[in-house]
């Protein structure tokens, strides 16, 4: 095989749909909008697990808050026939992620588990990934954040604290994934069991609207939910091939 063929082959392989199927896991999440109540327990859980900063009122007013998962709210209709619909929005871990192509230093890339990962150490802060991400789930560190002592004691030692000038976003709680893999390895298991990894947001969701798991395992909860007729992807028309799949809200209108 000539050198050129080998290069072309490498690229073809990479671009082939299902490329990631060759790897061990393909993590994914489902969000059942018929269960979600907009309670935002997930938001605080993520903030707690992932050392998200407390930015303060001023920075919040300036639009510099950091929430790896946020609840968007959309009003429909006018009083009295009015509805408020919630939708949790987090990194969709797109398999064709626009944010990945634009990063000049590959600080955000797709790992073999199908995660869109963010390498803080490598990020130079161009913020292009945030522009390219249509879901607007990338958050930039406009400052060095500060935890009033002793609030710093609550910081999770398994997760880094990001410095000013770098981009951050939902990691699918990669530290928990790693921990589960370690535990599986210690137990002599080749694979992590379904439900063994629960990102903080999924873990806490009081209505169980969020479900996380391995999409490659057909028996996993998440795989089963992904076969539900209610599934859809947000901004599917952009072909981001996201790993977060939503289940439509059921609106059982009375009239």
């Amino acid at each position: 095989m000539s050198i050129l063929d080998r290069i072309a082959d490498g690229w073809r392989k990479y671009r082939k749909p299902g490329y990631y199927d060759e790897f061990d896991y393909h993590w994914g999440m489902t969000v059942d909008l018929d269960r979600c109540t907009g309670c935002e327990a997930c938001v605080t859980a993520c903030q707690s697990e992932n050392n998200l900063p407390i930015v303060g009122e001023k920075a919040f007013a300036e639009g510099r808050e950091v929430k790896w998962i946020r609840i968007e709210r959309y009003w429909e209709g006018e009083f009295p026939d009015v509805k408020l619909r919630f939708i949790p929005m987090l990194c969709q871990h797109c398999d064709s992620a626009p944010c990945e192509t634009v990063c000049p230093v590959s600080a955000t890339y797709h790992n073999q588990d199908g995660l869109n990962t963010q390498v803080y150490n490598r990020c130079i802060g161009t913020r292009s990934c945030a522009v390219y991400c249509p879901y607007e789930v990338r958050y930039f560190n406009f400052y060095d954040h500060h935890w009033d002592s002793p609030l710093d004691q609550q910081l999770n030692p398994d997760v880094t604290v990001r410095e000013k000038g770098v981009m951050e976003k939902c990691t699918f709680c990669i530290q928990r994934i790693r921990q589960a893999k370690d535990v599986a390895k210690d137990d002599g298991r080749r694979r992590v069991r379904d439900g063994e990894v629960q990102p903080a947001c999924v873990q806490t969701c009081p209505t169980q609207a969020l479900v996380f798991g391995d999409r490659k395992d057909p028996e996993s909860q998440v795989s089963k939910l992904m076969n539900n007729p209610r599934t859809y992807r947000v901004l599917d028309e952009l072909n981001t091939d996201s790993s977060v799949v939503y289940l439509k809200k059921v609106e059982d209108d009375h009239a």
Partner: protein
Amino acid sequence: MPNIDRRDFIKLVGAGSVGVGAGFMLRETIKHPTEQLIPHVIAPEDFSTGIATWYNTVCSMCAAGCGISVRTREGRAKKIEGNPSHPVSQGRLCALGQAGLQVLYNPDRLTGPLMQTGQRGSGSFAQVTWQEGLDKVADRLELLTAENQGNRIGLLSQGVRGHLAQLFELFADQLGSERLLHYDFDHPHTLYAANHRFFGEARLPYYDLKNTRYLLSFGADYLGNWISPVHHSLGFGHSRQGRSDVRGRFVQIEPRMSMSGAAADEWISAKPGTEGILALGLAHRIVSEGHYSGVDRDDWTTALSGYTTDQVAEQTGVGADTIRRIADTFVHTEPSLAIGGGSAANHSNGVDTLVAVNALNYLVANIGKPGGLVFNPEPAGPASQDRQASYRTMLELAEDAKQGNIEILILNGTNPVFSLPSAGFEEALAEIPLIVSLSSFMDETTALADIILPSHTYLESWGDDFPEPGVGFSIGSVSQPVVSPLYNTRATGDIVLQLAKQAGLSDAIPWSSMKDFIKDGWRLIYDRGGLDTQKESFESFWRSILKAGVWGEKTHRDPAFTLDKRVINSIAVPPPEFSGSSDAYPFILHPYVSTTLHDGHAANLPWMQELPDPMTSVVYGSWVEINPATAGQMNLKEGDLVDIESPHGQIRAPVYVYPAIMPGVIAMPIGQGHVTYGRYANRGVNPIEILSPRVDQRTGALASSATRVKIKATGRRIELVKTGGNSRELGREIVQTTGGKASQGHSAKLNSIPITVVPT
């Protein structure tokens, strides 16, 4: 040696460099498939996360009593999660529960005992030792007890349960004081009273949301902060998509859409205070259509004769068709359930309203059935009296103080100066010679104390809890310290025990620590028998409870219940009364307990301040919600500062144009407006300040939704701090929906709606 001149040399070097560079890049391209561009930054295989220690304990952030597991590393608490084996939380947690860490690690915590040095309220305190502080209090207590003046000692605590409540009772008893009260702003007095009237016991039943198919909620924000939000959310999720055959439907009746209103399938706004009338209208329809066939059918017919559909439609502003449809669906969908609370219960007719809601449950015979209303067995723990002080009781306490009948007031974690409207409580406190506070934080009431004996937070203390309401069977949970105390503070129970000892009460209260006291208490539970656990020794029983964090017994209460005829005959809901004339004060103020800050006690937690309000996405501030049409007429836009004036005061807040609130009603969240509660809390305004002192006639509970107000534009505006940009979807199908018109009316084939079963 070939003849190479200077130029050839340069050419060769140039060509060589380009060639080497190109070759190198080519090799790299082949070597690394794209996904391995950056091998260095992929964490090395032997990277390992730390090993954490988890402790099971109980959440104390609200009265629900969820079981929690706290993750600790190197002696520090890092994360709170629900305890999966706890029946209330089942591993889940609300945002506030998560934020408990910030109570522990709050930078504004009191770090040791303090004594007021200046004028009360001057805020000048000096550090003292525990001994000094305790001596001062204990001496006075001893003196008063010795003189048989024990009743001049007041004990005012936040709502506590379990053995701490028992300890307080024992303590008060031994001191000879009858003035032991609990005070929480959002305690559902009217619900207890209504249950007392209807079911004959002032307790909360278990509302089985999980198995219900049709829920009517009269003002109860059961997903936000009503009674047990995490447990209700679990039930909600299951009811919605957890069963293969049916999807539960939810109807919410309230003048301003709450979180539960947003989650409901149908949101109905009845005129404020007429929710009970609507409930009786539904009851009338059920009975008059012959859907009720109990023996007391005729009594009901008579009692409800004044609540014909048309009359009720007229009084409540809810369409007659809607009333008929809901009543029919309610009776035809089995099991169905009605609950009431929140603003519906906070009117002058609050108890009557909730009695009417109970009547609906009675008429569809869901009492004691799955998916209905289930009576809880007696709690396994100490049977303590309900000591919750209503607004009226607090006024009496204030009056007593003014009369000079109170020598010492011991405060425990309650903040009435912040949460009692127009009660003159601050002036009353001025008449009390010695005020002692056991709070962990400086707050508006603690700032007036003479001696502050700061308590541990719940994550540093021993305690236990017997959740009210239970989950239909007996449970109890033990809470244990998960970290060693951060500061020179002590557990509330230990402070009380120490005071008792120093005041010479150690004969009756011999325990040296709260842990011993609780352990002895649990010995009683263990001894009571009938427990599987008695197969093991008490010590191993105790250890297993500490490990599990919860203990439960599948004992069910007999659902049998007969309704007293007199209750039926007296059923009626009078129209609500409001303070202020509708001419001078055209709007009804709908104050609601903030979903994020609750009644204000969570306002010092930065995570909660930064958590967008679920409905408006506002953070860090106060706002007033106004119907879009009304705002249009008054030419008000988001952020316009308005003065909100009631007959009892005036506050200023920015407008939030809220699509789901009735015209004629304006709403404000309670929780902000602190002044001495620390760096994160001191902001916004407190609508409690302008509430009228009107009460529910039967209980004396504050009718917090019964104040009329007027609003005046100030011509100034501010930018609301919030996350939401545009609140409309613009047809972009971001939140997609299904179902809809396909399933109509009460005979809807619920099976036709796609259901998702989560295998658990």
